[in-house]
């Protein structure tokens, strides 16, 4: 069994303990133990189908909405098991950004204010202020301040993805999960989002799944390598890329497969 991860660079924000996950009778994750350090970016890499996205989607329990799935083990946020808590409260604290931008068919303003509204966070607050702050945090304010009432679909793909980040930030999550957030974007939009992640980590703990190893190297403090539903290795990013301790990791990093 792989020992819980070593790179203790900061206090643990989230922790996965012996996580097994099944789609019907197919086991997608095997005994995952992984710590996520506070205010750091943790990247999860690995070939397609290795379980990294599945694992990420368990961290906010969004996989529960799929039929016929089963999770074993424990996932803690600030040392409390999120599997025992009210799921909507958990998801309020752990935000998520998806592979493809998924703005709601509403205006930019309504997209941002959606989370605060349904979570009852608007009492005594100025909605316009929340929208501005959130868009600024996602580095989208300058581009959208004059068209807040236009449809979110009027934005480019990269802008839509930053809108989705802003929408997630509007409820002040403690953790932000990103599932290959740049896979549908061009290089310029990608680099904007990467810059954003590096600034955002001072405000929340970030977990990112990526297909792109250079991206992990650029943004992540620590990186975990997944293969066939198992976490092979988790360490400081430069260790993973320069001096991995496992043969499988080295093979993947050097492009021998995947």
């Amino acid at each position, binding site marked *: 069994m792989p020992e819980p991860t070593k790179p203790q660079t900061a206090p643990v924000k989230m922790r996965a303990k012996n996580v097994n996950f099944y789609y019907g009778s197919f086991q997608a994750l095997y005994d995952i133990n992984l710590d996520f350090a506070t205010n750091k970016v943790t990247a999860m890499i690995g070939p397609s189908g290795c379980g990294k996205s599945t694992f990420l989607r368990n961290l906010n329990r969004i996989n529960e909405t799929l039929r016929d799935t089963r999770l074993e083990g424990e996932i803690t946020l600030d040392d409390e098991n999120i599997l025992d808590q009210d799921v909507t409260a958990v*998801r309020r604290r752990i935000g998520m950004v998806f592979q493809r931008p998924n703005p709601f068919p509403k205006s930019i303003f309504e997209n941002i204010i959606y989370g605060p509204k349904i*979570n009852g966070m608007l009492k005594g607050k100025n909605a316009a202020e929340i929208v501005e702050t959130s868009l600024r945090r996602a580095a989208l304010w300058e581009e959208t301040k004059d068209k807040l009432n236009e449809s979110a679909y009027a934005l480019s793909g990269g802008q839509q993805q930053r809108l989705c980040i802003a929408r997630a930030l509007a409820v002040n999550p403690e953790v932000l999960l990103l599932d290959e957030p740049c896979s549908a974007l061009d290089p310029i939009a990608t680099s904007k989002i990467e810059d954003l992640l590096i600034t955002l980590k001072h405000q929340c703990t970030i977990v990112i799944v990526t297909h792109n190893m250079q991206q992990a190297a650029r943004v992540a403090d620590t990186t975990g390598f997944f293969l066939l539903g198992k976490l092979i290795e988790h360490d400081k990013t430069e260790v993973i890329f320069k001096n991995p301790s496992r043969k499988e990791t080295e093979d993947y990093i050097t492009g021998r497969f995947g």
Partner: protein
Amino acid sequence: MAIKMTPRNRRRLIVNNIMLSATAICAVITVSSLFLILMYLLKNGGQSVDLNFFTQLPKSPGELGGGMANAIVGSATVVALASVIGLPIGFLAGVYLAEFSPKGFGFLVRYTADLLNGVPSIVIGIFAWGLIVHNMHHFSALAGGFALSLMLIPITARGTEQFLLEVPRTMREGALALGAPMWVTIATVIVPAARKGIMTSMILGVARISGETAPLLFTALGNQYWATSLNEPTASLPVMIFTHATAPYEDWHRQAWAAGLVLLGLVFVANILARTIVSRGASLPK
């Protein structure tokens, strides 16, 4: 350049031309039936559709003029009753089918809805007669509305389900990931995203039932005068057409044609309305 025509090639060419013509002819028949109906109605009923038709009660045979104001209002009443009962039930059933139904039970509901949709409308009329008219001892708009709502429910349920399922999963997840409970996600994101489709299927469903005759024949029955309450026999356009067209009076036949024209016009308007709603910008991204 010359293409060498082998017998095989020639046969293919002939078959091709025959099939092409056959499909074109059938396409023309499809389109022209509608125009033939419309022209026929215009020719036979056009002169009788005047202001009186919309403001006056039917006249006795032999008297000229008169209208079908009571039938127009009666149809509207019965269809409104059916909508009040059928649209919410159908809509909520559709939401259940699309979002909550477990596999086995969902299949059962879906299958039953499709069967209900296929039940001959005269059978639905008999059922409503047995359940309501027979027990209340009189015909009424309520019984008619009930019968029509039975036809509206499966149409609305399946339409709602279909358009809800077209909303991408990622949009649901986007709302759920912000901490929205399932019912909030459905009410604030999924249904609004599918709104146009759902409204369209509702309008088409209502248009469809407004032309139904059989379920009204022995429920709302018919009435030559104004109905003063929902508990009385009530006139409706389709039944009016039936009674007027089967009566042996020339002037009643003309009124029947006119009623057909008006009914068709109303259904057209509903269709066009539905299509306008859909075409006003796509509600979802590709």
